């Protein structure tokens, strides 16, 4: 089941304190998405996180944003944040250089329950930046490939140039027996892949309804359509997990901003088993 991991303990544990860390590397994934690799060596104890968790990322004097950790949890010393540039804070992060310092506090949030997928087929459905919080799942399960059945990735992006992690997707497909289906909303004459919504990719795979666990992350509308497809293919609600999103200020359940009905997405989420949030998804402006 989803479970929380503790926030990092520091000498005087104040949950609102941020900790300076250095930027080791910046990779541009596409025109408006970049991955920062952060040096966590100065952390009091080894920084540990589980797939699905996020940090509050601080730009000095500006503010914070909740951003999922997108690197391999087993990789020590550094972590990755894949960031979509959408406003002034993420733009400020986009202008950072190697060696610059930003603030981190975390990790927060619930985790993708990988143990329930043991000996089952894993179906990962993601759209846009939604693949970032799911990448740690892939790193983790591919370390023990034989513990899982089929591993299927359905991934949708805006256009071929917007797709994230293309090299890794290819590697997983070729070397790890992962079924990778990628689609884009708009293609060009050089794109020989699928064009259309990510849910259309379901036409090309057959799922074993009784033995599949699905992890879904992307825009809420995309997740709703995906849930419909999974339902059409016979999956029950408790086989499906999604990651919800709301703006966060405190990330520890004090500020109230991230509430979706009765749940605080920072505390109980962002990863939820579908039965928990299903009645909430159709409520407009909840």
């Amino acid at each position, binding site marked *: 089941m989803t479970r929380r991991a503790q926030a990092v303990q520091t000498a005087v544990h104040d949950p609102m304190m941020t900790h300076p860390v250095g930027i080791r590397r910046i990779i541009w994934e596409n025109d408006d998405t970049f991955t920062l690799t952060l040096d966590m060596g100065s952390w009091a104890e080894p920084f540990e996180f589980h797939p699905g968790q996020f940090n509050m990322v601080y730009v000095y004097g500006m503010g914070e944003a909740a951003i999922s950790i997108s690197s391999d949890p087993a990789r020590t010393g550094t972590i990755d944040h894949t960031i979509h540039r959408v*406003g002034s*804070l993420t733009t400020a992060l986009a202008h950072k250089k190697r060696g610059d310092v930003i603030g981190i506090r975390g990790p927060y949030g619930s985790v993708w329950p990988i143990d329930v997928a043991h000996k089952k087929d894993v179906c990962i459905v993601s*759209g846009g930046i939604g693949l970032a919080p799911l990448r740690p799942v892939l790193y983790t399960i591919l370390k023990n490939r034989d513990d899982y059945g089929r591993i299927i990735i359905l991934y949708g992006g805006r256009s071929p140039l917007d797709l994230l992690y293309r090299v890794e997707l290819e590697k997983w497909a070729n070397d790890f027996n992962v079924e990778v289906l990628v689609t884009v909303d*708009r*293609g060009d004459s050089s794109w*020989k892949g*699928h*064009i259309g919504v990510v849910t259309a990719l379901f036409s090309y795979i057959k799922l074993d309804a009784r033995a599949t666990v699905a992890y879904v992350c992307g825009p809420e509308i995309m997740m709703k359509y995906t849930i419909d497809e999974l339902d059409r293919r016979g999956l029950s609600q408790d086989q499906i997990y999604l990651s919800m999103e709301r*703006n966060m200020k405190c990330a520890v359940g004090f500020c109230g901003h991230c509430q979706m009905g009765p749940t605080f997405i920072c505390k109980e989420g962002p990863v939820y088993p579908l039965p928990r949030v299903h009645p909430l998804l159709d409520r407009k402006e909840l």
Partner: protein
Amino acid sequence: MEKEDLTEIMRQHPFLANLSDEYMKTVIGCASNVRFVEGAHIIHEGQIANKFYMIRTGRVALEIGAPGRENLRIQTVGPGEILGWSWLISPYRWHFSGITVLETRAIALDGECLRNKCENDSAFGYEMLKRLSQVMERRIEATRLQLLDLYATIDAGART
């Protein structure tokens, strides 16, 4: 190709799933097995739509053109899916172009042949229409989702 082999292949295609033997014979009467190389222009926007393709392997990209702009590829159609319903809907013209992006095998159905059979046997016609409208509905749903441009970067200004 023998008609019996064709029947087996066609039975496997989702579009004809659970079709009665009698109607299957009706459809086969208009069917032939086809193969296209990669990059073949198999459909031309504006032309008479006289073919209906049930894709077996490969991939076809649907394109819409506008003067002064590069053609827009809006969708691909793959194995188990169908290409084209304009053969049944007046004025029976293609609304897009189709280019194979991979080597593609399909069952091609003669549009006029099928259309006449629908006219003569309305129960058969209704069966075809039922199946086509399901496909259309899914296409519209998908197109609407694409319209929303969910992955676009919205310049949020002061927001994070």
